[in-house]
């Protein structure tokens, strides 16, 4: 039998790229890479499709990210206990432990494979950090070497089903304007979180596509109210990287200093930004830090070096960038330890999956999410391969149907004047402002939901999704749907907890040590569920 890569080559002149695989992975970041590698190890024939390029796609590739790398035993127990004090009581120690355990194993594997970790002063490889561009270039080589067929610039537009079982996906090759279809025994969604159209490196293309595809298939999301994570960035820049700001002072326009001592600097800066411009300067820290920061976080200095600012001696204007569910929490609810979603043959990994059980109500940004991408990718890839093995002989003979609707197949007449670009602006206006999302309130949430519900009804009925235009139309649909799921969940959680900051309900209410699950497209249903294994504080 020809390999999948040979099949892709043979079909290069065909009108439609039509493939049959055991496992289809959708996405191009670390979770997708680990899922593809693990499914291959388990004997599956794997195709990866990504909207961009596996190696540069997603939030990890342009970043320098910590890993959550804690040895088993007392040190790990202590790390879990520390985290439990912060996470709002919604995380489950067993899930933190198994995430840490798998990341511990696979980061060692990465070192064995030859990824170039730096050595610390004791001469031991420092596995607590991954440099994004290098890590993802390395993962691409590994995935290719494993025999996986990678289809870059092949956005998935919809899932395929056969009598309620997920049977693949279809989309378009956006560089050749050619439709593709992959029938597969199981599908892993590793499409990342949603940054709601924010201009931010690695995240502007994260538009919630996987959430939309999963909910269309009948899946549920959870933790979507925890979508109000923001990061400091030099104003107008794409650099939402917080590390250098740990040594920054912040100032109002009149030069007075903001008091961030023992406070969440994001909240202090957000309040000040609502009143006027905020400036920062990296004026704290020991002298050696300047060199380490420049060498260790070089992308953070591009905005300064390219505009002639010395951030250690000069003040520069800052903003807060919305990181949505990328460094937030919400995503596809997992129904089992194997990253299953409750929909047969559909698995979720990385930021596409809800990280609520690992990180609770606070950000998993940096280390935890990076370790989660590894662990959940491994679990999902393994389970998808196992599921597909049972289906293997039947995949080719299946009668599959595309289940994508909004942004692909308008319910009523397509209107050429309906614009995906206008919809994106609407989502930005409702979801990015500090006064709407960072600080929330019942009245503003309802007002935003009204507008977003109307936008949804319009696009569902009239937004055309033909040919290449379908890519932006589907993104517009996913962004609109995701902002509605997030705000509907934020209304249901009638309290403040972690990153959900309700100005009208500032207290944390012990009644709300629970999850909110959200589903549905035209009518959104939010249901409360208890968290088995959660340890309330």
């Amino acid at each position, binding site marked *: 039998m020809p390999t999948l890569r040979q099949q892709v080559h043979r079909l290069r002149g065909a009108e439609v790229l039509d493939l049959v695989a055991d496992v289809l992975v959708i996405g191009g970041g670390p979770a997708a890479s680990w899922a593809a590698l693990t499914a291959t190890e388990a004997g599956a024939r794997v195709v990866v499709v990504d909207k*961009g390029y596996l190696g*540069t796609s997603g939030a990890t590739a342009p970043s320098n990210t910590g890993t959550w790398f804690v040895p088993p035993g007392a040190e790990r127990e202590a790390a879990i206990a520390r985290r439990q004090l912060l996470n709002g009581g919604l995380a489950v120690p067993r899930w933190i432990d198994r995430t840490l355990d798998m990341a511990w194993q696979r980061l060692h594997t990465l070192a064995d494979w030859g990824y170039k970790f*730096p050595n610390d002063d004791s001469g031991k490889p420092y596995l607590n950090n991954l440099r994004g561009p290098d890590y993802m270039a*390395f993962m691409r080589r590994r995935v290719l070497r494993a025999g996986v067929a990678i289809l870059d610039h092949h956005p998935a537009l919809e899932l395929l089903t056969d009598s309620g079982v997920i049977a693949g996906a279809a989309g378009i090759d956006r560089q050749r304007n050619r439709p593709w279809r992959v029938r597969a025994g199981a599908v892993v969604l590793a499409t990342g979180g949603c940054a709601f159209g924010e201009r931010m490196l*690695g995240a*502007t293309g994260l538009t919630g596509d996987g959430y939309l595809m999963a909910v269309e298939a009948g899946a549920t999301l959870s933790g979507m109210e925890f979508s109000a994570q923001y990061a400091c960035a030099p104003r107008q820049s*794409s650099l939402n990287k917080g590390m250098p700001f740990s040594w920054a002072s912040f100032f109002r326009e009149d030069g007075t200093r903001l008091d961030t001592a023992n406070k969440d600097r994001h909240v202090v800066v957000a309040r000040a930004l609502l009143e006027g411009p905020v400036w920062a300067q990296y004026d704290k*820290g020991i002298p050696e830090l300047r060199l380490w920061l420049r060498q260790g976080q070089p992308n953070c200095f591009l905005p300064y070096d*390219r505009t002639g600012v010395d951030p250690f001696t000069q003040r520069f204007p800052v903003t807060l960038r919305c990181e949505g569910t990328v460094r937030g929490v919400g995503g596809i609810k997992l129904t089992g330890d194997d990253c299953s979603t409750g929909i047969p043959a559909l698995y979720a990994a990385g930021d596409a999956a809800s990280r609520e059980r690992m990180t609770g109500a606070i950000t998993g940004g940096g280390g935890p999410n990076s370790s989660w991408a590894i662990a959940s990718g491994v679990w999902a890839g393994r389970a998808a391969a196992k599921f597909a093995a049972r289906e293997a002989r039947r995949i080719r003979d299946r009668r599959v149907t595309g289940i994508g609707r909004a942004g692909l197949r308008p319910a009523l007449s397509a209107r050429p004047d309906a614009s995906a670009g206008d919809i994106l602006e609407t989502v930005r206006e409702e979801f990015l402002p500090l006064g709407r999302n960072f600080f929330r309130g019942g009245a503003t949430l309802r007002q935003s939901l009204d507008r977003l519900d109307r936008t949804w009804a319009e696009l569902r009925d009239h937004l055309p999704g033909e040919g290449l235009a379908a890519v932006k139309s589907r993104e517009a649909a996913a962004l609109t749907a995701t902002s509605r799921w997030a705000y509907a969940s934020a209304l249901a959680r009638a309290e403040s907890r972690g990153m959900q900051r309700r100005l009208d309900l500032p207290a944390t209410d012990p009644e709300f040590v629970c999850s909110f699950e959200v589903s549905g497209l035209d009518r959104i249903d939010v249901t409360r569920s208890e968290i088995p294994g959660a340890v309330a504080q």
Partner: protein
Amino acid sequence: MIEIVSADRCIACDICVKVCPANVFDPVRQKPPVIARQSDCQTCYLCEIYCPTDALYVAPCAEGPTGITEAEVEAAGLFGSYARALGWRRGKPGGSDKDPTFRIRVAPR
């Protein structure tokens, strides 16, 4: 955003067309690629480091083009500056083993 494809430096290898996660470039036969969808650029700077000849320049403003010229970028020595800071050479990875971030993580705050 991506602002400059230097015709002097570019060897028309089209690697940027392939690696840009936002599909910003269009290839042109035997010529430098064109910036076809500039507003889709997410200012991630990765095209710069994958470019084997340091022919690309991404301005740090993510909101819109600044209009900076190739001569200005050249004069300021900014072509390839991010790749050099990382230790990437000719579009290939390098330097992750020299990352001092482990020192930053334990530095006093």
